[in-house]
């Protein structure tokens, strides 16, 4: 099938939403961004810059902004979403009345719905008529994406058409788009890695070095894989861009909110103090609770997730957790079937 140059709509005027918009514009698409704040949308149209997040980058001419969701739905059949996990359902519900069966909806949210523990694609199915749904996830720090550094991401969908159209819309000489047939695995990977990222912050805050970080990343990936497979995901997803790839980038970056939460936990601070002076709650804080509860219900062994959860929600001290994790019974690396928890 000949790829068609199609228009692209993007939900979210934050750092990642703007980055996606820029990627699509670089690939030649006509892009319309949506954000709640009408003033911000006007400012972007007037100044060709997203002053709040990327004052240093001039946005492509083929990028426009709006605060009208209906206009967004009418502009393009291909819609990317960078909305955060909280409020996702509300946006989906609003969008639902404006889109039809011919819309393709690809979300890039790395998280689960707090109370229901549902994945974003499940919410999309509940709130909108869209069926051709995809998930975008990978080692993509927004700033480096805006700098057009060579990078790659994964678009996962049950529909090859969704992958093809996403590839046509985003791929360029500095951005590769890999396909995946495992949207469930990619969604869980995205949520899980944020929890491991908090742990990376703890490791960093305690002044530990590369050895510890490498152990964390590797065993974190093993734990993610164990969870994913039990929940119906494909094995290989976790050794891919959405799994180990994103884990490497998130755990190595000291700029993320998750990292900062971890550093503060390592200093003995409790969750309430941390939340009270951070403007937005780190995704990993919410995900830790959701993942922990799913793991417990399904008897999946997740020591790192448990450790983060215990420190966030049960007031466990960092030394206590460290000791427990380091003195667990030794097993073989390839034993993924443990269910004691």
């Amino acid at each position, binding site marked *: *099938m000949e790829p*068609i140059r*199609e228009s692209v709509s993007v939900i979210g005027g934050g750092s990642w939403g703007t980055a996606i918009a820029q990627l699509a514009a670089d690939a030649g698409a006509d892009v319309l961004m949506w954000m709640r704040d009408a003033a911000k949308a006007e400012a972007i149209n007037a100044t060709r810059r997203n002053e709040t997040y990327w004052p240093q980058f001039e946005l492509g001419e083929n990028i426009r902004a709006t605060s009208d969701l209906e206009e967004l739905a009418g502009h393009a*059949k291909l819609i990317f979403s960078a909305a955060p996990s909280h409020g996702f359902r509300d946006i989906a*519900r609003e969008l*639902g*009345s404006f889109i*039809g*069966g*011919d*819309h393709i909806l690809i979300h890039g949210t790395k998280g689960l719905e707090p109370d229901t523990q549902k994945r974003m694609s499940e919410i999309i*199915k*509940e*709130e*909108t*008529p869209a*069926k*051709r749904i995809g998930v975008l996830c990978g080692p993509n720090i927004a700033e480096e994406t805006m700098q057009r550094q060579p990078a790659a991401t994964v678009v996962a969908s*049950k*529909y*090859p*058409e969704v992958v093809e*159209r996403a590839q046509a819309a985003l791929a360029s000489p500095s951005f590769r788009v890999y396909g995946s047939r495992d949207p469930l695995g990619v969604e869980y990977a995205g949520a899980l890695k944020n929890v491991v990222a908090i742990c990376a912050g703890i490791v960093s805050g305690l002044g530990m070095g590369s050895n510890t970080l490498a152990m964390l990343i590797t065993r974190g990936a093993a734990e993610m894989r164990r969870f994913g497979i039990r929940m119906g995901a494909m094995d290989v997803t976790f050794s891919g861009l959405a799994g180990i790839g994103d884990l490497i980038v998130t755990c190595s970056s000291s700029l993320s909110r998750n990292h900062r939460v971890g550093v503060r936990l390592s200093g003995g601070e409790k969750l309430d103090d941390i939340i009270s002076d951070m403007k937005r709650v780190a995704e990993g804080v919410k995900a830790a609770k959701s993942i922990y509860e799913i793991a417990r219900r399904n008897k999946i062994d997740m020591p790192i997730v448990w450790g983060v959860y215990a420190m966030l929600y049960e007031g466990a001290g960092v030394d206590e957790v460290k000791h427990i994790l380091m003195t667990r019974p030794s097993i073989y690396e390839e034993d993924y079937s443990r269910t004691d928890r």
Partner: protein
Amino acid sequence: MGKQEWRLPVSEHDRDVIIEDVVRRVVEEKVREAERAGDAAALEHVINDVLYHEKLRARSAGDSHDMQREMAFLSSTTRRLSQADFAGKRVMLEKLTRHYADDIAGHFSPRIFDFSTRLLPVGLEAVFSASSPAFLFNSSPNISDLQSRIVIRGDIERIKELARLGTIVVTPTHCSNMDSLVVGWALNDVGLPPLNYGAGKNLFVNKILAFFMNGLGAYKVDRRIKHELYKDTLKMYSLALLEDGRHSLFFPGGTRSRSGALEKKLKMGLLGTGLSAYVNNLINEKPKPNIYYVPLTINYAIVLEAETLIDDYLKEVGKSRYIIVDDEFSKPAKIIKLLTNLLNMESSMSLQFGEPMDPLGNLVDEDGVSLDSKGRKLDIRKYVTGADGNVRHDAARDMEYTRELAEGIVASFHRNAVVLSTHVAGFALFEMLKAANPGIDLYRLLRFEGEGRLISVADAVAGIERVISRLLELNAAGKVKLGGSVRPGECGREVLYKAMNFFGMYHTKPVVVRKGDSVKLVDLNLLYYYHNRLTGWGLEELFRGDD
């Protein structure tokens, strides 16, 4: 008004036209594939695939007359295959396809249909008396009015309306060969149009039954044939029917449930023809393009072939038979016995129609318009539109849509299953046996621990009432339907006695018997079979201790 406006099933009058259409389309598709792949030998591959699979089948089918005839036809048609040129191979392919299409296509006869449906109860008796004259003299089954014995529920008027607005595909659960007869009669009785019926070939083994099945509009599905050409021909036949506005029926589970449980995995091949027909209808701008699926549950207090089916299910892995022909359905005496008893008891057979849905699994309203999960109206044309805005086929996309349809049908089967006394009693008694033997695996439970086991009537009643009260909750939440004897206020004792009545009336050994103030478990396999009907609603947790 009424039946006249509906298309009749494929008859002698028009089957040739449909057959030629099917042959042309199947062969053209194969030729196109060959051209696209640039493979001159592609047609030969298709034919060789046929020969290979049929030879395999012949080896295990032994010396059956039919198989010999089949092999003779194949070898004469494909003589000198490798020396034939492309045109020659195409001719061979056409002959093979026509052979299969001719075997599949129906032979509806309005005369026979009329006769069958008016006289089916008596006809059945005549059918089986004719093949076993002794029964004319030995038994005089008092088959009372079918109408009051087979309960049919659901929004029949809505389904009739959808049959006027588009083309309907009824998709029933399948646990017995009686299903074909019961459904055929029942659908006609409520005034639905005669359907093009995809029936397993084993229903045509009995010549007299075949006469009726043909007359009723059935087309033959031969599940013994494994090669691609047959499957493609079958799918194309179903597709051609649906595009031609001919209302259809087939069992999406493909075969009778061996375990007694409701279908969880459906066969996607035939199921997906509805969506393909819809897309073709849009492309060809047909005035009534819509296809509507109508799930239907068929519920029996006693299943004719239960003993054979559960026995097959429990066979060791690899020895299970996909097609069983020598079961109770081949013994007229058994059918008469069952029918006589079932038709003379209340709450013994129940049909429940589910909510109709479109080929993507969306529910539809009274005007046949699809609705999304929030009840918003949908233009489902958009789901099959490509990036350029045009309607197009997309095999991978459509397979995923059909998978969602299958999920919707399975969910509908569960919501619309009608729970009868034998299901409740079977479930409660078996779960109680399991709870009394924790950690014991199924086979040991069935073969050693269970047989002869006594459960006090008091305990049995208590267990049954636990199940009933949960069923009442599920029913109130719209998650299951309840048969006549499973009602609020109906105490567990009455359900137990009713079930025991059914359990003892037909099977070779009674499933359970009364022994003093206890219930004695006699046939564990059958008990397990009837138990399995209630899996899928989480009722097992009622019998698990604190976990």
